[in-house]
């Protein structure tokens, strides 16, 4: 009740104080007067203030989650009878940093060692692509939980096509294998989009179902149709020349570059194109979209296809750049971590890039953390921290209270609306 209404009256009163009256709109004298009334400098807040306003909450949520993670590290050895170890969080987080960015000292000079950083980038690539998939869908008011399934589809088809092209010229094999994965994901994203458009079936329900369907169909297809011979478990054949070229360092492959390019492509799509405007309008107000002559059903199907394409590309990049083959259960976490990445990045492509890099760093560093703490801090702690981040983002009031933050509009306002909306009005569209 208070929020929006107050701002409204505020603006109005301010304008009135300038001394124009509604009648005079057509009179030139009044127009001049209005110009004098000035555009207050507060019209567009400066860049730094804007950055803080949008990023304060995610940043503080991360710090909060890390703090609680530290408490967890202090408690757990006590509970398990290994005694109180006050320095454990420092050791653990130190190792996490070392494992994800390395020692800055080793970066420079002869034979600089960027391996840790490279690992972070490689881990981040599929998360960024997956995060973009979820984030783009959020922009259209859709909650695509199906990135996991789209990822699997992309991974599978990239692996199969890649193996088939293992012997042909790499300049031909790589793009075709990538494309196969991306298109498989797009097709798999189109299904829930089409169902929503045609029948009103809620995408959350259908994508969850389709995740299971993808996993099970692919398990069957793998073992009965495409399994390569000579292995102790069902997997696809070697991808040979379809492997993504390494661009620099030990393992930073083409997929990393693609992920970063995708960030800017999606950013451009959303902000600079008419299609992006249509997607955002459908997400913000489907009725107004219809009124503006946009066909929401078409946009929903299209957005889910693009979202699926990104999810499929994430799977393809993971197979062709890292894994080398498809087997049951590979990179199962990516599809769901992508949701966290999108929420943390607030569906903004640049935010998603930052969040993807952070989670990539967690994944790159978690192994060293476990080793350096003598298994006292297992890798699962990272999952706990990720979950806590989402908890604080969603329950943003906790952070606001503690820091007296006036970040005006809710952190996940649009996303939460997307997640919760329309459950009661199935099929209304």
């Amino acid at each position: 009740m208070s929020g929006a209404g107050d701002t409204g009256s505020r603006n109005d009163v301010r304008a009135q104080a300038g001394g124009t009256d509604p009648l005079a709109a057509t009179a030139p004298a009044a127009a001049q007067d209005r110009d004098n009334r000035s555009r207050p400098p507060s019209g567009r807040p400066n860049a730094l203030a804007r950055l803080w306003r949008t990023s304060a909450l995610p940043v503080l949520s991360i710090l909060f989650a890390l703090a609680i993670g530290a408490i967890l590290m202090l408690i757990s050895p006590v509970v398990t009878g290994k005694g109180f170890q006050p320095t454990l969080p420092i050791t653990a987080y130190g190792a996490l940093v070392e494992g994800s960015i390395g020692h800055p000292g080793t970066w420079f000079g002869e034979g600089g060692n960027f391996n840790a950083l490279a690992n972070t980038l490689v881990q981040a690539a599929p998360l960024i692509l997956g995060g973009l998939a979820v984030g783009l869908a959020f922009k259209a008011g859709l909650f695509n939980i199906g990135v996991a399934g789209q990822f699997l589809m992309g991974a599978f088809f990239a692996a199969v096509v890649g193996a088939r092209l293992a012997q042909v010229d790499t300049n031909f094999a790589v793009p075709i294998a990538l494309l196969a994965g991306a298109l498989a994901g797009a097709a798999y994203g189109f299904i829930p989009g089409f169902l929503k458009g045609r029948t009103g079936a809620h995408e959350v329900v259908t994508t969850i179902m389709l995740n299971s369907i993808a996993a099970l169909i692919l398990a069957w297809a793998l073992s009965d149709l495409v399994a390569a011979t000579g292995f102790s478990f069902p997997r696809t054949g070697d991808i040979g020349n379809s492997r993504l070229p390494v661009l620099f360092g030990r393992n930073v492959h083409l997929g990393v570059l693609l992920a970063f390019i995708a960030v800017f492509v999606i950013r451009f799509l959303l902000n600079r194109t008419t299609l992006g405007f249509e997607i955002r309008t459908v997400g913000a107000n489907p009725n107004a979209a219809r009124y503006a002559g946009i066909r929401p059903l078409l946009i929903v199907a299209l957005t889910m296809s693009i979202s699926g394409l990104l999810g499929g590309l994430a799977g393809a990049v993971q197979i062709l750049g890292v894994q080398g083959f498809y087997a049951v259960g590979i990179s199962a976490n990516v599809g769901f971590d992508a949701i966290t990445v999108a929420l943390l990045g607030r569906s903004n492509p640049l935010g998603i890039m930052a969040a993807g890099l952070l989670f990539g760093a967690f994944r790159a560093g978690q192994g060293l953390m476990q080793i350096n703490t003598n298994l006292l801090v297992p890798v699962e702690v990272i999952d706990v921290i990720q979950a806590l981040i989402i908890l604080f983002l969603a329950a943003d009031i906790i952070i606001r209270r503690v820091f007296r933050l006036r970040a005006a509009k809710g952190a996940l306002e649009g996303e939460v609306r997307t997640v919760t909306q329309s459950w009661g009005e199935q099929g209304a569209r």
Partner: protein
Amino acid sequence: MTETPPILEMRGITKRFPGTVANDGIDLDVRSGEVHALLGENGAGKSTLMNILYGLIGPDEGEILVDGQRAVIRDPTDAIRRGIGMVHQHFMLVPVLTVAENVILGQETVGLPGMLDLREAETRIAALADQLGFEIDPRVRIDQLSVGHQQRVEILKALYRGARLLVLDEPTAVLTPQETEEIFGVLRRLKGEGTSIVFISHKLDEVLAIADRVTVIRRGKVVGTRIPAETSERELAELMVGRAVSLVVDRGQSHPGDVVLSVEGLHVKDDRGNESVAGVDLEIRGGEILGIAGVAGNGQDELVEALVGLRKPSTGRVRLAGKDCTGKSTRDMRARDIAYVPGDRHRFGLVLTYPIDDNLILTAYHEAPYARGFLRNDRAIGETAKELIPQFDIRTPSAATRASALSGGNQQKVVVAREFSGVISLLVLDQPTRGLDVGSIEFIHKQVIAKRDAGAAVLLVSAELDEVLELSDRVAVMYRGRLVATYDAEEAERERIGLLMARGEAALQDGAGAPVGVADP
């Protein structure tokens, strides 16, 4: 007269927001058993003042006295405890719960510990409703009630909590004329039983009809308190706006040209599949305004939606300038120079999270100059905003301000600015001034007349009978999906049209006199 202290006194209430003073030393006293109207334009500070009273925001300065005692009201709970009840403009009801469940929400009657005693609550609510003359079954679900009845549930809710002072925020904004009359009856009865009422409004006639005293607020300050018997609409309007306002539109002479819109035998179904438009024939010429009067929900929305391409008619013909365009899409219709101001600006007219400049091109984003191929042309979009914002007097700090931050009047001006610019052959207006203050209404009415005089055919649908009568060159009455009568402006009598709105053709058979053109039965 001064034996008892006023039930409420607010003294020197000041509330500053960054860059503005919303309330500037406001004094207000409400006597026991009076209806005290708070009159002011959108954004004058009425709602801020009442939000302070209800504990939703804290004042920077000033004090509140209830029954002569200083009262600190930190939150709505404090307010309720002191007998202050509030009925918001947008109802705070849970649609899937029953009347009784909504009324007791937060004050549940408990039988056994932890068990809800709904039966007991229902009896008490029924008794309370009876006392007020409400015909409301406490067991009915909210979403099955009309808006007018939902409002009564809100009032019940406040009274159930022991309110002695009831604040009603723009209670008639969502009501039909009949419902407005009914709610006035309720308010008078409440007053008779000693309840004090603060009635927030910007409608002059209503304020004069119901209030014992009227306090006018302009730009955060009290500019005067009047007694209805000793004032006039004209004086109140001047106090409210700060200058002389013409309350009557100078329509001038219309010069009808060729037929622009012709509709034959149109049938349209609503979302539930009911035939809500049941055979409409109409014609509008260029340079004339056809007004459709009618109680909301008689098929006006569906008729308008079918005309602008948002809804497919089941049968019938729609022709624009002689060309058949039945069932064409919204975009096709817009390409034929149709402009449309929708009835619900929040649902259709605006994307509230978008800045003003994007809202100003919402329906033309895909055309030159706003699009070049598949790319947006931000410069052209910015230039249009720079042009339209002063031209339509949209009061905003900048074109980048979100639409949600504007007052209702300014939001509507954004919609009007967008729809009224460019070439228009047919202008469809659905409740174009709903919830606006007199200054904005005057402005929009002048724009409508200007468009008519420029040769546009105008279809005006409004639940405000006065608006229809003032603006229209011809007036049609819509009742249960059909146009039951059409009159030329000079022959349109308020009385007769009111009867037709309420009862359809039955009103004519009672000997009310034959209209010029009765639609075919």
